[in-house]
């Protein structure tokens, strides 16, 4: 497909989206569904409230993400080194892959109480698992041939770990970090559904009680935008530091 053609298709897709959105709003095809102009109006009118809520949620997401990445990457590095740890943790990793992290929110609230710590800890744990599992899945797939060709040169286990294993799992680890970055916002918002007094999640619940779908859609749009920025940032980092792994 030529470049022009694909650009045209993208433009067509975006225009159709805007069209369908506003048509379904105008003809009330979806109940309470606001048109795009009213969503923009809501954002402009509640600018200060939404901005402060976004800051609160972003702070929770980023703090949780940092902690989760720290633990996840450390855990991944250890897992890559120790075949014993791999064997011991394997069944749990397989299990946690299918655990929906959102199900843990009430549990965290019970453990920590309705405090900031509970929300950040929840985001951290959700991010940790995403990163850790992505590494755990990459480790068995490190190509044996690279390890052999290093071994034929007399490489020690430490040499192979540093020069072959770590580099091979890095792209997958970055993939996990990228998923964790987007997830951190979802997790932070979800954690605010229960007992929070601020943040975008609280705003969603609050607007929902008042049947303000226009404001709710505005909040969802802001969350999407924040997660997209996080995703883009990680992707730029990946392109900068992992040039060898980026497709042409």
């Amino acid at each position, binding site marked *: 497909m030529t470049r022009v053609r694909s650009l045209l298709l993208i433009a067509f897709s975006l225009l159709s989206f805007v069209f369908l959105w506003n048509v379904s709003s105008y003809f009330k095809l979806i109940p309470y569904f606001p048109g795009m102009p009213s969503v923009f109006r809501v954002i402009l009118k509640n600018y200060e409230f939404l901005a402060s809520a976004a800051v609160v949620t972003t702070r929770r997401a980023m703090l949780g993400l940092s902690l989760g990445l720290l633990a996840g990457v450390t855990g991944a590095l250890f897992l890559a080194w120790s075949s014993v740890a791999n064997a011991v943790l394997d069944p749990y990793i397989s299990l946690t892959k299918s655990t929906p992290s959102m199900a843990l929110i009430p549990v965290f609230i019970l453990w920590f109480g309705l405090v900031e710590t509970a929300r950040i800890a929840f985001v951290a744990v959700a991010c940790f698992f995403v990163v850790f599992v992505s590494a755990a899945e990459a480790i068995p797939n490190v190509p044996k*041939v*690279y390890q*052999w*060709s*290093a*071994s*034929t*040169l*007399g*490489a020690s286990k430490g*040499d192979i770990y540093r*020069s*072959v294993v770590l*580099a*091979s799992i*890095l792209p997958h680890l970055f993939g996990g970090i990228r998923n964790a970055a987007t997830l951190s916002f979802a997790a932070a918002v979800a954690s605010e559904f229960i007992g929070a007094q601020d943040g975008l999640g609280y705003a969603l619940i609050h607007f929902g009680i008042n049947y303000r779908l226009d404001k709710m859609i505005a909040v969802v749009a802001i969350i999407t935008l924040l997660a997209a920025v996080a995703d883009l940032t990680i992707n730029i980092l990946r392109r900068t530091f*992992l*040039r*060898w*792994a980026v497709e*042409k």
Partner: protein
Amino acid sequence: MDEVIVVEKVSKVYASERGPVHAIDRFSMKVKEGDFVAIVGPSGCGKTTLLWGLTGLHPFNGGKAYILGEEVDKPRKDVGIIFQQANLLPWRNILQNVLFPIEIMKENIADYEERVKDLLDSVELTGFENHYPRELSGGMQQRVSIVRALSYDPKVLLMDEPFGALDAYTRDEMDTLLLGIWKKTKKTIAFVTHRIEEAVYLANKVYVMTPRPGTNSAVFDIDLPRPRPEGITMEQKYFEIVAEIKKRIVKDVEKQKEEGVYQSQAYSTVT
């Protein structure tokens, strides 16, 4: 030190999913210093297993193998190995890849940079130092792997069908390139291939292995002029030697079939 590689009645049985595989049976071979020896045989006959045994990574079960007078029991710094796949590390650029052995051997990289650049030049890869492997063709990648094997100046080169994955034209080019490198560096080379034409073109001596379990079938001294004249592969004499070796292999297979011991090559060796 006249004989650089000495293989004395080595045997290898390894475990596979379908039970033990008797890959090599009392195979012997000698390679003189600076010699170029090829090992041929039907696929699955244990040629690759033999080479892996010589790397010291997958030791033989029986018999002994010596390189430069020392028994082979672990990887050695005076042996360079080139596999069928280039196996370049995708996260390192070409220069970093060819310097990889130096790093692993904890030598001073600066001492080798000049040498490595000369080697890259001799395989016409100057200017590609900062490229990543995926940006290079298969033939170029294999040239890089040759430079990598030569980077630390080993005395011995073990090559396992190094050009087997390349297209026919590139393969012929690589054979000629290899002869040039051999002439210049005077390495002792043991070269495994299933292509008789390639073995005859390259080597001074061709060892023929029987079908599995691989054992000595015959040794052919290749009486062709050095350096190989252009068009040698079109000449009567060359064809005669190739035909003679092929006949030998066919005869080995026929003999095993008559005895009912021939195993079709259902599985590969070291993977």
